[in-house]
């Protein structure tokens, strides 16, 4: 094991991006739009919470600020989690949430780069990471301290361009790039072990030349520490954070039940899911 900088969790008084409230936003969107991919969003809620609250810099709270950090959601299926963050930031308002999927709406069911706040058009998997590698290369050439985070699904790791990009990132010593794997163990048709086994991801990315850490992807403090450790360690090496997550996390009847990749909410399941979040006064 490499010696990493000692953990230094930073207490935050920022009440934005509370995971339960973000999950409620996702449920409200999904219910309003009768959409799928709820479980894909729930597995990355804590990851995006920590990124937006503690790490991503948007000068002037401008999603298109030239000096921003970049969050590339390569697994575009989790986009409702990012919408929830954008709602917390005031980039989206309640009408976006309640009007999700209405005819003529701007917010799509997968990440679309034309929406301010989203950096890539993804959902066709294996695209976003390569774009993120290009952004990181560009920022590196410019000599800025901006960072690029790319969230990929573990199922998405089936895609070849991810590994092409990993080679390039290591070869060009992109230490401004962090790949975050949402390792929820499922892909569309089953578990990742059953469909196409990924093996030891930490060993794989380490062997590719990445500074790699594994973390409980629902433990905010642990995620925060791991991200800080990765940035502090291994100059000249890209970073990989392998986040062990639970697909559908937060609503017990959705957890690790792959039907919630595809299932739409009805009035009853919506009410049950909201209740399961345990938010006082959230009984609508």
């Amino acid at each position, binding site marked *: 094991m490499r010696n990493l900088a000692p953990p230094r969790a930073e207490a935050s008084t920022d009440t934005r991006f509370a995971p339960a409230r973000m999950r409620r936003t996702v449920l409200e969107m999904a219910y309003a739009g009768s959409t799928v991919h709820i479980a894909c969003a729930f597995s990355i809620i804590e990851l995006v919470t920590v990124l937006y609250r503690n790490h991503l810099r948007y000068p002037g709270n401008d999603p298109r600020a030239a000096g921003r950090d970049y969050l590339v959601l390569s697994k575009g299926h989790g986009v409702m989690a990012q919408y929830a963050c954008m709602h917390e930031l005031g980039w989206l308002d309640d009408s976006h949430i309640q009007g999700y999927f209405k005819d003529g709406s701007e917010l799509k069911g997968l990440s679309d780069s034309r929406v301010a706040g989203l950096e890539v058009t993804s959902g066709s998997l294996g695209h976003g990471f390569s774009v993120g590698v290009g952004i990181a290369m560009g920022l590196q050439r*410019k000599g800025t301290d901006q960072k690029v985070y790319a969230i990929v699904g573990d199922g998405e790791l089936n895609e070849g361009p991810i590994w092409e*990009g990993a080679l390039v990132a290591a070869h060009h010593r992109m230490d401004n790039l962090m790949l975050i794997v949402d390792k929820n163990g499922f892909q569309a048709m089953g578990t990742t072990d059953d469909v196409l086994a990924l093996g030891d991801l930490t060993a794989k990315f380490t062997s590719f030349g990445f500074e790699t850490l594994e973390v409980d992807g629902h433990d905010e403090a642990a995620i925060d520490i791991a991200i800080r450790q990765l940035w502090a360690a291994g100059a000249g090496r890209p970073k990989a954070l392998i986040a062990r997550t639970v697909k559908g996390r937060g609503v017990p009847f959705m957890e690790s039940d792959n039907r919630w990749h595809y299932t739409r909410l009805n009035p009853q399941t919506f009410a049950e899911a909201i209740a399961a979040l345990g938010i006082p006064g959230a009984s609508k």
Partner: protein
Amino acid sequence: MREAFSNALVRLALADPKVLLLTGDHGYALFDEFRKRCPGQYINAGIAEQNMVGMAAGLARVGFRPFVYGLAAFVPIRTVEQIKLDIAHDDLPVVLLGDGAGFVYSHLGTSHQSTEDIACTRAIPGLKVLSPADRFEMTASMDYAYSVNGPVYLRMGKSDRGDVHTGPINSFSSGQLLKVRRGKVDLPGLIATGSMVSTAVDIAQELDLSVWSAPMVKPLLKDDVCAAASGSNGLVTLEEHSVLGGLGAAVTEITSEHHPTRVLRLGVPDRFSEYCGTHAYLLREHGLDIETVRNRISEFSRTVALGAHSVASS
């Protein structure tokens, strides 16, 4: 023509440090000058074209001007989805350079031949498609591709067919046909692109036909095509590309709607190469050698003339 390409690339890169050349481990001798003069702007992205094109999108997002080079069989064909989603969807200023288009790699077989690249790229919204015929069109195309500040596919085919134009092209505008030769108005006019312009000129000199070169297949100016149609008796399109979806399709899309005209589309039939051989051999295999093309144009010319006669006499 390849020297014109290299010179233009070096000139653009020296003038603008944001210009980057990305190659998928191709262009061995072609980029010697570029690597010597602009070493910091040269990126060999490895034999990983999909990632390379996605990466070019990322570089363009933060202000760079990537030129992405590959064989046309790989850029654009292998990477059509990256071009569509990562580049064209956001109108990013990336120039895609597809070399060896058509049957340049005549001995290597289907994997390195590319006769579907115009069709695939032409349907991608906002993507411009260039197909220069000689060194003068190449220089103008490269300057245009840089100046347009949006997504461009530049197709480079067989490059040793000699000059079509007599000198530099000063008025190169979007979608225009370049008049190469004026012939008889009661005979078919030829509209050709890339390597086939030279063939068109050779035949036109024998038969006294008009020839236009189409250095840009998309966009293609409606008025120019209609003017060519009205200045000829029928049109023949020539391209080292499938008869489906390329220049012939682009021309007939315009004429069928705006200027009904008989159009003979000469290109690669809807099939793969069966054998290998010289470039000239493969043109023969696909009916694009000068004898076959001349015969088909003559036959078309007679048919069109008869058609006109039968209409006139009815």
